[in-house]
């Protein structure tokens, strides 16, 4: 039931969660992979910058 000018979240709202879904939830493997990619990018950029800093003059 798509409709011009209305986001699908409104015209086709997400179906109600199946009953009994409370408690343990399914695994979040995909998200875990993504956050580890993030951590790797973070660590790389962070330490590259320490390296760049170490190249400038001694100061303090």
């Amino acid at each position, binding site marked *: *039931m798509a*409709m011009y000018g209305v986001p699908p*979240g*409104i015209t086709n709202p997400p179906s109600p*969660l199946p009953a009994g879904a409370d408690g343990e*939830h399914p695994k979040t493997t995909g998200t875990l992979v993504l956050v580890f990619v993030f951590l790797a990018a973070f660590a790389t950029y962070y330490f590259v910058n320490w390296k760049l800093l170490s190249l400038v003059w001694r100061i303090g």
Partner: protein
Amino acid sequence: MSTAFRTCPVTRLKVHSQADALIKANAVAATIFLIVGGIAAFLVLLTRWQVVHLLDAAWFYRMLTIHGMSMLIFFILFFEMAVLYFAGPVVLSSRVPAPRIGWLSFVVMAIGALTVEWAMWTGRADVMFSSYVPLKAHWSYYLGVILFAVGALTVVGLFFASLVVAKRERTYEGSIPLVTFGALTAAIIAVVTLGHGAAIYIPTFLWSIGVMHVDPAVYRLVFWGLGHSAQQINLGAMVALWYMLGALTVGAVVLNEKISRSAFVLYILFINMAAAHHLLVDPVAGPAWKVWNTSYAMYLAVLASMVHGFTIPAGIEVGQRLRGVTQGMFGWLRKAPWGDPGFSSLIFSIVIFGFVGGITGVTFGTEQINLIAHNTLRIPGHFHATVVGGTALAFMGATYYLIPLIFRKQVAFWPLAKIQPYVFAFGMLVFTMAMTFAGTFGVPRRHWDITFSNTSFDLQYSPAVDLVIGIMAVGGLIAALGGAMYVLVTVWSVFFGRRFDLETVKTGGQI
């Protein structure tokens, strides 16, 4: 004043007519300042791109001040006022207590903002939004900021009152929803922030009329107590909207209330330290103070963002899996509604905020690394990723839901609206990364002429800088196009849009 309620046909929430009206007024005001700030962005960008070098020096610095104030203060805060009216009264199905005060605050904020705009456009305040003492603006500039802040603080008070009223009148069962909780943290932070604001703008106002002395270093400390804490408000509001968009677009679940709420509380606990990373190469504070404060007590606020950065996508993943979208590791992403501008904005906002804004922010805010970042283009590169690619984009995504739910209009130029987040996010990604990279060569921020054509000593940056600035300009122009698309779509929908009601949805709608 009317106290009529309507029942939202989609969410079944009871919406107070005054909440509707106040959200509309604040959202429209936000958009007006977005337009002003956007025009300034375009002009500033085309000046920094030295191939075009559009404005003369005086107008460049003036426009840069106008851009900073209109965007970072007026656009963002007016929109946040709308978010507070939404996350309080609307989400809790309650009334707006004392709507007259809401309107009064709106008028006070508008007068404050217009005063500041007047001072800036007439050349009375060429001081950048940071207005470091002893660089002096006309007193009306400081007065305007004070008025604006007082108005905003009153709205925050009204938000607290609406929580009390909703609780007392039992408009909901259980605890306040996570989205409201997030907005509550933003509101608490706003109180602290605006307290710093009073502590700095009132003395500075008095200094501008010649009755008080303000120490330049103390100014920087207290100003950033305001200036950076204000970014934590944006952060809290943005994360609350992330949770909201996840819920609306794909029915994302809250994995664990304890974890998400504790993370929000960490934001509140550590904002008072936020000034520190602006002062890392200042001649005042010592190393212990810098290390402790710039890390917000061992990076606990960073921890909070990393937690939300996990729980939000994981909530989407779990929501999808529970509904039977279980294919492979990323089926939940592939099968997601990418044509829903609310959803695409959400994902791009998280990615740009985290991968570009977050990583660069923590890195540049490290005590010693700040030596190779302070006041270079790396800094605006970083914060356009947080506050524009992150916050502003989340606001845009929320707007696509606000238009049908609150303005009760269909979103005009729907195909354009669907691609708008893609254009804006792509442009911002290129713009912020190129800007940050240009800063690595030491290229200064807030600078009219990096070719140093009329100076006593020459300086020529490596040709790579020209290339990178060119890429930055192209990215910025694409982002500006995305911003213009957003303005066109929202303004047209609100003023000339077709009425939206659930009956049209039930009958399949019409074009």
